């Protein structure tokens, strides 16, 4: 609605209406705050008139759109703030239109830059960037693109080099009184483009930008602006958008434009009504007419209900869409690849190319050079749409690229695509995020419109520019069906599956669920080998079944889907069906129930196995069995793929151990072995996988047998458990830490501190610089230490608390006194009960009775107080609250610098974790040494003193002849206490779960031969062994030796090509070394030459690359893995020899000798 003032002035000539603004400008006066605010509220036409007809540059009304130096990027905001988004947007739109020519130039070069960057032509990208900036000069876009180029082309060290120079420049400006923006932007740009920085880590860096409820309004706005600019994907404070637009006025024109477009996209995606307001619509219309930015056209065509005319739709894209819709998938794939070569920055082409590839059922043909962004994006999209095993990794990488390329148009498109697929979008849900992925108006965007009328307007506008397009036609048919509440068949020739899918969607949207269900079922028949179609069919059937109240049917549909392909159905849907199944009276004999419970946990990466156990238990109970292996007699009742899934993924030891039908870990593992054996029959193709698992389970059982530890040791940290729960982002941080450690020039490791108060960060003239590599190392060390100490499931404090502090320690010490009746218990008032036993025994005179009671109560009190000190002060992790805690894990900067210096020698995240755990174990060892000493000395002294004093004081009161039994009791208690304290002190030694005592070689070999005879094949082995059993082998070598010998024997069984193979095994230990020799027969079909070639590569491989590659590969002989086992697991380093050969009598032999292992 127009204001009174507007109505009265709207009829005045433009020149006259502009006078309040133009007059002062012509006279060179700056406009007052209120005048500027009024100006911003004017119509777009008036704004454009003022900008066009008055020398606004003279009064800097539009700031410095083309800053010559970076210092100008720090200029103040040239206008006053209206706090009205519509006015701020219209003002910015007017300024953009005023500079339309420069923006169009920029858009052209920006497109060139992005296309070259994506396809890895960095020189062309650099040239386009320079051209873009030629007349526009400095900008934050220029700065970030420079970081991105440098990182891609020259690597991390060059990125840091650029950052160092930017920080120096920023420091100079800070000294001149400017705000600290340049350093802040430079640092975060530098980090955002890094290859090694994970998204979560970058978000963590930017956490301080998030506005808080305690912020003053000015600080809140500034945080909001910075968060929008530097960490857009976490921005959710939409009320701050007016300031975001306003703040950008102080920056270069192109920064202002990029932010402006992003704000408009944000409004369109969040379905803000503002984007459809009259003023903004007018502005959008004008922008679309004068600027060559198709993204504006997308927004405009979806918001202007008049069905705006679109122009210049990319013919290549629409041709691919046409082919795709008509079911010519291979042609669509080929056309899209050709188009991608020409338009590598057109995101829609990547998506449709990946989809066409998946639908055609062919392997991906990637037209880009490996390693380029374009190559990675197409690959990632393919895996995501194919929903294959690489989907989770592809999603992660895609998001990382989205961050790296945030300064490009494609950045936000990748982010939006990631969000849709990571969250599991249901095709019919109105997810407006799809809008962000669009460069051009396309038919499918009509789904974002609220009604058929608007959709028809939108689609007819598309039709007028790209007529006879099958995609447009199909969507028009869809919308016409919705409008008429009756399905119309598509006239153009589209594949039956596609028509079927659209019909099913339309019927579902019309609420005709029974018919929709039938269509989705029909769709499933087309969906074989097409995961996206399978997902549509399964999810559609599921939704319709739920609407029709058929829960069991819904479960059957989803179970079939998840078993055939993981990642097909999102975790949210799976949890939903599990919930439904829990509430409904379902048939517990239905195998879908445990399958879905298992799949829901797996998809959500939950470690909680209870829901799987409960569903499995109900299922087994319904079939009248206790253990999964007993299902064998009912095997014919289940579909094999469902049964296999259940056995393989649900019947794991961690699930089975919750069942009451097992009374030991050994029984659980025995059951799992039986399951693996059954699985080998059900899935012969995966026999190796199951055999390997059997071998591992047997290894565990053997290790347990060899430990001979029946008592649970007291101090325990489950390092492997901690490794499993460490977030994936930590591994990314480790990679980054290792990258920093390799930078030789120390100054390149410098960053400025991001943690101080926000206000200081922006205004403070003194900037604190830190060694970024050390900062990351310290952060990693602290996080790993925190898990080591405080992890509820696996940490030290939890262990101390459960096994020592609570009760056990008190019980053990008190028991020594209780046995001699020397202590009593406290009552509710805190008074110790009378020691009736000794009062009766000693029979004191009445006058002494009370004092004796007091002395004995004091002994009880002193014992309990001493226990309390040990429990609550000594056996604690040292902290400010517990300064006497004997578990001291404080590491000052100096103490951490020493390990930090060694990081440069580390390769890989596992080695880094080993290294940090070693440092922590070393400190634990020192702490435990101190605790043991304190228990044996200080605790003993305190308790003995209490006994001595009690004895002496009682002796003063009791008759000498009556004291004798009391003295005997005291002496006995002292003796028992001394033993008990020795025993308690022994609790405080490290128990590594995998620590095995020294063991005899025959024990290992016998267990191993059992596994080999059960798992390895096809040849049956007859082993003649000669094993040295004269001395035990160090426990630490158990795993390595097991793995080494398993590989040798398994190879004999696999590759001898005999029904039955004779094997000679010799194992000797002595002289500080170990030797293993395995010789086996070879069948006459074995190609000796081929073996010789393999053998030549194994004996002396190019250590490093070959071993690293070899150990990652599965299959083959696995002989390269021997090097890794010997070097790392057995700790032989370079001191070993592997000698494989074919002997003169035609047998295959491997002799291995290694030194330095028996120490």
């Amino acid at each position: 609605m127009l204001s009174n003032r507007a109505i009265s002035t709207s009829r005045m000539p433009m020149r006259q209406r502009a006078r309040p603004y133009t007059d002062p400008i012509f006279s060179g006066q700056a406009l007052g705050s209120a005048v500027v605010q009024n100006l911003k509220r004017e119509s777009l036409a008036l704004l454009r008139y003022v900008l066009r007809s008055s020398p606004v540059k003279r009064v800097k009304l539009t700031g410095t759109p083309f800053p010559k130096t970076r210092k100008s990027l720090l200029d103040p905001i040239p206008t006053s703030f209206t706090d009205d988004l519509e006015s701020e947007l219209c003002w910015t739109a007017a300024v953009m239109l005023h500079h339309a020519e420069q923006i169009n130039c920029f858009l052209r070069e920006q497109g060139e830059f992005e296309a070259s960057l994506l396809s890895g032509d960095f020189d062309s990208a650099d040239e386009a960037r320079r051209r873009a900036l030629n007349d526009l000069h400095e900008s934050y876009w220029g700065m970030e693109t420079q970081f991105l180029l440098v990182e891609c082309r020259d690597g991390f060290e060059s990125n840091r080099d650029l950052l160092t120079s930017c920080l120096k420049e920023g420091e100079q400006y800070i000294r001149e009184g400017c705000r600290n923006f340049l350093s802040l932007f430079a640092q975060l740009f530098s980090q955002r483009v890094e290859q090694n920085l994970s998204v979560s880590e970058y978000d963590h860096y930017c956490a301080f930008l998030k506005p808080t409820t305690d912020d003053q309004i000015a600080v809140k706005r500034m945080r909001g602006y910075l968060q929008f600019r530097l960490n857009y994907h976490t921005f959710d404070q939409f009320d701050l958008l007016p300031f975001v637009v306003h703040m950008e006025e102080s920056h270069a024109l192109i920064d202002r434009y990029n932010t402006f477009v992003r704000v408009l996209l944000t409004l369109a995606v969040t379905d803000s009504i503002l984007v459809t307001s009259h003023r903004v619509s007018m502005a959008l219309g004008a922008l679309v007419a004068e600027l060559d930015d198709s993204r504006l056209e997308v927004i405009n065509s979806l918001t202007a209900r008049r069905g705006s005319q679109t122009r210049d739709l990319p013919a290549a894209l629409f041709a691919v869409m046409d082919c795709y819709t008509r079911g010519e998938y291979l042609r669509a794939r080929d056309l899209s690849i050709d188009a991608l070569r020409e338009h590598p920055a057109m995101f829609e082409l990547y998506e449709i190319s990946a989809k066409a590839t998946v639908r055609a059922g062919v392997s991906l043909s990637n037209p880009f050079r490996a390693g380029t962004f374009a190559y990675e994006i197409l690959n990632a999209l393919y895996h995501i749409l194919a929903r294959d095993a690489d989907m989770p990794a592809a999603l992660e990488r895609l998001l990382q690229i989205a961050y790296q390329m945030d300064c490009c148009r494609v950045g936000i498109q990748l982010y939006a695509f990631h969000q849709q697929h990571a969250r599991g979008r249901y095709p019919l849900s109105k997810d407006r995020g799809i809008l962000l992925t669009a460069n051009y108006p396309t038919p499918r965007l009509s789904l974002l419109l609220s009604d058929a009328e608007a959709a028809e307007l939108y689609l007819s506008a598309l039709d007028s520019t790209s007529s006879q397009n099958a995609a447009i036609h199909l969507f028009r048919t869809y919308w016409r069906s919705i409008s008429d509440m009756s399905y119309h068949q598509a006239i153009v020739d589209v594949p039956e599956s596609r028509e079927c899918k659209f019909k099913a969607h339309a019927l579902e949207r019309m609420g005709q669920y029974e018919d929709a269900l039938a269509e989705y079922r029909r769709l499933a028949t087309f969906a074989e080998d097409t995961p996206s179609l399978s997902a549509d069919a399964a999810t559609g059937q599921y939704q319709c079944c739920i609407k029709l109240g058929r829960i069991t049917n819904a479960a059957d549909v989803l179970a079939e889907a998840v078993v055939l392909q993981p990642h097909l159905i999102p975790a949210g849907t799976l949890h939903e069906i599990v919930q439904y199944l829990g509430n409904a009276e379902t048939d517990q004999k239905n195998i879908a129930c445990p399958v879905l419970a298992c799949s829901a946990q797996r998809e959500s990466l939950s470690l909680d196995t209870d829901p799987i156990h409960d569903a499995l238990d109900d299922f087994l109970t319904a079939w009248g069995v206790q253990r999964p292996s007993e299902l064998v007699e009912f095997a014919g009742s289940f579909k094999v793929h469902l049964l296999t899934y259940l056995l393989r993924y649900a019947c794991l030891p961690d699930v089975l151990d919750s069942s009451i039908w097992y009374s030991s870990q050994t029984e659980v593992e025995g059951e799992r072995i039986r399951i693996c054996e059954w699985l080998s029959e059900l899935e012969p193709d995966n026999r190796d996988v199951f055999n390997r698992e059997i071998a591992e389970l047997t290894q565990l059982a053997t290790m347990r047998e060899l430990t001979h530890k029946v008592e649970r040791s007291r101090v325990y940290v489950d390092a492997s458990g901690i490794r499993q729960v460490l977030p994936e982002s930590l591994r990314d941080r480790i990679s980054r830490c290792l990258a920093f450690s390799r930078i030789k020039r120390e100054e390149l490791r410098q960053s400025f501190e991001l943690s101080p108060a926000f206000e200081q960060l922006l205004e403070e003239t003194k900037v604190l610089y830190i060694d970024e590599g050390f900062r990351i190392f310290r952060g990693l060390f602290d996080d790993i230490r925190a898990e080591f100490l405080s992890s509820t499931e696996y940490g030290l404090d939890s262990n101390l608390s459960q096994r020592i502090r609570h009760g056990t320690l008190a019980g053990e010490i008190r028991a020594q006194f209780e046995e001699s009746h020397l202590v009593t218990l406290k009552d509710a008032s805190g008074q110790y009960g009378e020691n009736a036993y000794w009062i009766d025994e000693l029979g004191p005179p009445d006058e002494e009775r009370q004092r004796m009671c007091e002395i004995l109560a004091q002994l009880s009190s002193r014992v309990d107080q001493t226990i309390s000190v040990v429990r609550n002060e000594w056996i604690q992790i040292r902290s400010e609250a517990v300064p006497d805690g004997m578990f001291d894990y404080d590491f000052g900067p100096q103490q951490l610098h020493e390990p930090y210096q060694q990081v440069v020698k580390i390769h890989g995240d596992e080695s880094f974790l080993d290294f940090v755990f070693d440092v922590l174990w070393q400190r634990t060892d020192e702490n435990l040494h101190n605790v043991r000493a304190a228990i044996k000395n200080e605790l003993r002294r305190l308790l003995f003193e209490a006994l001595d004093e009690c004895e002496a004081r009682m002796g003063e009161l009791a008759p000498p002849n009556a004291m004798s039994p009391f003295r005997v009791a005291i002496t006995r208690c002292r003796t028992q206490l001394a033993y008990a304290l020795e025993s308690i002190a022994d609790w405080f030694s490290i128990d590594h779960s995998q620590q095995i005592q020294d063991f005899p070689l025959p024990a290992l070999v016998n267990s191993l031969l059992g596994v080999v005879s059960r798992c390895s094949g096809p040849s049956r082995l007859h082993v003649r062994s000669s094993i040295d059993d004269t001395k035990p082998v160090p426990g630490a070598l158990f795993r390595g030796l097991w793995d080494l010998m398993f590989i040798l024997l398994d190879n004999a069984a696999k590759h001898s090509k005999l029904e039955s193979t004779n094997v000679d095994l010799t194992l000797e230990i002595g002289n500080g070394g170990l030797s293993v020799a395995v010789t086996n027969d070879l069948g006459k079909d074995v190609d000796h030459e081929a073996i010789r070639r393999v053998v030549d590569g194994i004996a002396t491989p190019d250590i490093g690359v070959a071993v690293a590659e070899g150990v990652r590969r599965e299959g083959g002989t696995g002989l390269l893995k021997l090097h890794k086992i010997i070097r790392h697991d057995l700790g032989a380093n370079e001191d070993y020899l592997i000698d494989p050969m074919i002997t003169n009598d035609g047998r295959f032999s491997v002799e291995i000798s290694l030194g330095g292992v028996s120490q």
Partner: protein
Amino acid sequence: MRILVVDDDPNKIRQLMQLIRSEFPDAEAEEQRSYQSGLKAALLNTPDVMLLDMTMPTFDVGGKEKGGRERRYAGRQVLHQLQRKRVETKVVVVTQFERFGEGPELITLDELRAELKREFPVNYVTTVFYQAADSQWMDSLREVLKSLVGPNMETDNG
């Protein structure tokens, strides 16, 4: 009355059994030392009352058995299974902990009481805080057990 004691601390079990024998001499008392053996006894023998520790190993420790994984909330898991199997045994949790979990997951004994009451209204009775040096827990437990025994059992005893 049949009472099942499930705890992995021998000293605590000793004291609990002493209390049962002295206060309820006619009660049949059984002891188990892990999540597994405790749950099995509860489901197969359906005792009237169960005295249950909160944190236990999965299996009984002994011989070559090291106990499997440590279950921090074994008591809650037992309660969950009893509820699922519709076994109406009354459960008194006897714990030596005043707080459970770490960081954001940390809950106090009172919070745990409220949570268990809400989640397992049929089985869960209360939680008694055990301390080796105090007799208060004995008083509390005695009262709770008496309230669970009811008039019939008292007649038996009398």
